[in-house]
């Protein structure tokens, strides 16, 4: 009973700290619960979606003539394959809707009931019977809609062989395999009648051209129950045994589909999760400060309690319980608040994933996480409250422990011209131990604010994007046939009439296999533009460069040899370097056009120009289309064709979350520390008032002191950011293919977060020190 009475009294007396810790924990618990729940919901939504369509482990797109009886038999009898399914498809080489054109192949399939149609509100699926597709109507995935920026009712035009077919979007279907906007290839669905008509047309067209591929099929391979290989290894094994991948138009494993679909969601939520976990570190620092100053301030009370027979463990138990109680209340409140937050976030990633996810919270995971947080906190509190054991009742009762101040090496003279500033600086240097924690907190906040700013800066920096291996081209071209070098020079001259060319790319891209594993291959006519991070570009015909991700996956190093295959062609290449590319999330390699000749490639298909005058891109594209419309199709790209709106929105969203949480944390931390400091320095405030300082003077001193702390923390945070932001982002964005993040700081990007935090600290401290007004000089009276 006595413990409960004391806990109640302590909480009442320290309601500021108590409330502060509750608030901080609410933010942390709410955010973590929301992040975990959204991740869980998407994962389970994705699993359900794959189950609904009975997706295979490997999708292989093949020309019809490749899928012979013999091939099918070899697949069906393969020990690692449980079953094989084959679906007819029609390949469209170009898709356009509104002003947007897509060069990735889309595959038109007959609509099957297993692909559920979403209802009008996108909150669930249409109930049986499923909507009937009329002629000229099409079902697409959400990812397709996002890529084409179209809506239900819009028209999409498909170019199949040499003919164009327009379809009206009837609805959205759940097709998880290619459904994400992160995947360029798509499966879309039309009715049987349309499919048969298109198929007949394509068959006629296919006979006319060697290159044209209209009719094709999708072969789905299902792993046998005893096959323990990952989907990637399964694909490699099957390819080595049957060569089916080498002869395919393209493949996708379910693991890679999951990877692409979850990539954006995982990256955004992982960045936020790391930030929130660091915020938990901030809470621990705040709690440590609160406990250590609390013990100092309660020195006499603790002594008195001990003199009355309280054991040190009993006193410690009171302290531990009151802090854990604050954390537990905050954690539970955070979980409750996460319920509406999860509902709001439920479909935030829908445009990218195309997966309908639940909107509930992962209760047990959240509770487990909170339990872990409480255990970590309890350990910290146990360590910090050891000091209580050292409180001597006699010393406490005989006047407590008065602090002794020592000279500081940082001591600066007090100046009349800058009296408030110099006094504030003296307070800071005299009590610097007290401010170490707060400096660390500011440095953590600034580190993350700068890190997310740096990430945002990349979007605005052509150089940064280029140095990370992005093909940044304000004007791009697709060649309609073979274009020789003389023609390319001619085209360049046209471009240079309007803008200097900073960088030019001439390339093709397709899937080749390295040592049996199929990867996206970039073939450059001018390989010197490849962004090599180690070694050198593949200047000779027997060289390739690979990304760090492929190097890790395949165990390849510079100087080693690898066999590249495509169809029936095979050639040994030397790995000449490591490069960075965000194409196919970094699972890519590159070679020169000379090297690709063995696979039948004798010219490049695309070109891109990074322009000195980017605003001239539209004009240049128009001029090129006018002059060379018969051999190429030129397009002007805003932002170099790099920036999806979704990325910008996501990065700005993360920036907003990190900035808002940082300011909130700054507010709570300043309030808590300021209140404690105020109580500790009440006597000094009285003295200053007796000397004639006004309340505004003293509040300014308070605010300046906190400003100085924020400044010191900001400097530390900036240094940490310069040293580690690149590494942190490289590791967080590795799954996107960025293994060597180029950090670019600008004066503005450094100043804005630092200024924001410093000003917030100044204002919050000024606001929190309002109590100075209530300090009466009379408190110095010794009766």
């Amino acid at each position: 009973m006595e413990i409960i009475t004391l806990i109640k009294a302590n909480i009442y007396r320290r309601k500021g700290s108590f409330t502060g810790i509750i608030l901080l924990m609410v933010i942390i618990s709410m955010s973590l619960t929301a992040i975990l729940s959204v991740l869980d919901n998407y994962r389970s939504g994705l699993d359900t979606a794959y189950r609904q369509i009975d997706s295979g482990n490997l999708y292989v797109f093949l020309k019809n003539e490749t899928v012979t009886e013999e091939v099918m038999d070899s697949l069906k009898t393969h020990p690692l394959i449980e079953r094989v399914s084959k679906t007819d498809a029609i390949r469209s080489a170009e898709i356009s809707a509104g002003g947007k054109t897509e060069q990735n192949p889309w595959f038109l399939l007959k609509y099957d009931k297993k692909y559920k149609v979403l209802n009008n509100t996108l909150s669930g699926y249409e109930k049986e019977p499923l909507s009937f597709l009329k002629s000229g109507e099409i079902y697409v995935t959400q990812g397709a809609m996002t890529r084409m920026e179209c809506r239900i009712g819009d028209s999409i035009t498909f170019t199949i062989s040499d003919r164009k077919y327009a379809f009206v979007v009837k609805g959205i279907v759940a097709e998880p395999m290619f459904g994400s906007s992160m995947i360029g290839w798509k499966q879309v669905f039309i009715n049987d009648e349309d499919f048969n008509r298109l198929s007949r047309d394509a068959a006629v067209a296919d006979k006319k051209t060697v290159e044209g591929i209209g009719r094709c099929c999708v072969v789905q391979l299902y792993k046998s129950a005893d096959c323990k290989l990952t989907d990637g290894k399964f694909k490699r094994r099957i390819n080595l045994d049957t060569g089916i991948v080498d002869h395919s138009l393209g493949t996708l494993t379910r693991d890679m589909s999951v990877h692409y679909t979850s990539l954006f969601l995982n990256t955004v939520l992982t960045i936020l999760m790391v930030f929130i976990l660091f915020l938990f570190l901030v809470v621990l620092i705040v709690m440590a400060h609160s406990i250590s100053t609390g013990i100092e301030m309660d020195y006499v009370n603790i002594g008195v309690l001990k003199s009355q027979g309280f054991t040190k463990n009993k006193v410690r138990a009171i302290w531990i319980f009151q802090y854990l109680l604050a954390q537990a209340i905050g954690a539970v409140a955070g979980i409750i608040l996460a319920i509406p937050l999860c509902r709001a976030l439920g479909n935030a990633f829908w445009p990218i994933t195309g997966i309908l996810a639940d909107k509930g919270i992962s209760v047990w995971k959240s509770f487990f996480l909170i339990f872990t947080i409480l255990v970590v906190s309890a350990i910290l509190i146990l360590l910090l409250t050891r000091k209580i054991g050292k409180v001597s009742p006699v010393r406490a009762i005989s006047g407590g422990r008065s602090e002794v101040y020592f000279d500081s090496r940082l001591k600066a003279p007090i100046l009349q011209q800058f009296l408030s500033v110099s006094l504030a600086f003296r307070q800071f240097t005299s009590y610097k131990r007290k401010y170490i924690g707060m400096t660390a907190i500011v440095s953590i906040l600034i580190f993350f604010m700068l890190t997310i700013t740096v990430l945002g800066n990349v979007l605005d920096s052509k150089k940064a994007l280029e140095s990370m291996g992005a093909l940044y081209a304000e004007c791009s071209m697709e060649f309609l046939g073979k274009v020789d070098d003389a023609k390319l020079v001619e085209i360049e001259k046209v471009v240079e009439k309007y803008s200097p060319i900073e960088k030019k790319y001439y390339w093709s891209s397709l899937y080749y296999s390295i040592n049996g594993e199929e990867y996206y291959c970039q073939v450059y006519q001018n390989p010197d533009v490849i962004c090599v991070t180690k070694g050198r570009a593949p200047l000779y015909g027997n060289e390739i460069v690979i990304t760090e991700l492929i190097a890790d996956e395949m165990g390849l190093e510079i100087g080693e040899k690898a066999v590249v295959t495509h169809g029936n062609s095979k050639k040994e290449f030397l790995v000449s370097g490591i490069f960075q590319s965000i194409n196919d999330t970094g699972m890519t390699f590159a070679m020169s056009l000379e090297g690709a000749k063995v696979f039948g490639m004798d010219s490049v298909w695309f070109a891109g120009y990074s322009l000195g005058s980017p605003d001239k891109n539209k004009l240049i594209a128009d001029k090129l289309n006018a002059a060379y419309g018969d051999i190429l199709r030129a397009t002007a790209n805003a932002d170099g064709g790099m920036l999806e709106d979704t990325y910008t929105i996501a990065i700005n969203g993360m920036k907003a979350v990190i900035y808002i949480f940082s300011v909130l944390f700054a507010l709570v931390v300043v309030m808590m520390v300021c209140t404690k400091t105020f109580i500790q320095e009440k006597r000094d405030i009285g003295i200053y008032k007796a000397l004639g300082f006004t309340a505004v003077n003293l509040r300014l001193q308070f605010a300046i002191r906190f400003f100085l702390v924020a400044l010191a923390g900001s400097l530390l945070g900036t240094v940490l950011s310069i040293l580690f932001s690149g590494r942190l982002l490289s590791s967080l964005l590795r799954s996107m293919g960025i293994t060597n993040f180029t950090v670019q700081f600008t004066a503005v990007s450094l100043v804005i977060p630092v200024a924001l935090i410093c000003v917030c600290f100044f204002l919050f401290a000024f606001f929190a020190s309002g109590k100075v007004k209530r300090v009466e000089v009379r408190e110095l009276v010794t009766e």
Partner: protein
Amino acid sequence: MKNVILSADGLCKSFAHNGGQVHILSNIDLELYEGDLTVIMGASGSGKSTLLYALSGMDRATAGKVIYKDEDIVAMGEKKLAKLRRGDFGFIFQQMYLVSNLSLYENIVVSGWLNKERRTSQVKIHANELMEQMGISHIRSHLPSQVSGGEQQRCAIARAVINSPKLLFADEPTGALNRKNTTEVLNLLTSLNQAGQSILMVTHDLKAALRATRLLYLEDGKIVGNLVLSAYHPDKERSREEQVNAWLSSMKW
């Protein structure tokens, strides 16, 4: 005829306690004169310190007026009071109350600079002179925690007079000192007074009371006794002690 430096008219101070009012000062009329070392004495709880702080504007009176330079201190706002403390009034406390992270020298000059009426260099020169006078110039860069109580109190006196205040308020300035330091501090206050400094001091120490040129006796929040003395001289301390003792006895001290 001495000039009145500060006067109180119907000064009252009461506190709310258990739903009622406790009256500490009751309707006090008082005049303090220029050049006097006025000492307020009285039994514990008689309201001595409360009177000192009410007169100095450190504490707000519940009723009545405190007139200084034709202005009522009781009605003054915080800024005006702060200005008064910066220039016209100086304070010495029983517990010294030096700012613990400023050196002795800095404790003194900060007060001087706050006043802004003198140049930085003038304040520095004056501070050095005062430290010399108080015998603490050799420990000027020490922090308060590194010096004795007597040295701290001498520093506090120097700080209180750095702005040459018109009136110096001292609340039990020797209350926390040993005998040797008490004598040193009293000697300093006496010499300041004899140099023209007006001082109002609260004490219950007879040795301190002997330095007064005027003694007031406070009982239950009212001034019940007033004794005017000649200027203090150490040679005449014995006769002065007898006179004061007799007066205090008559006050039932």
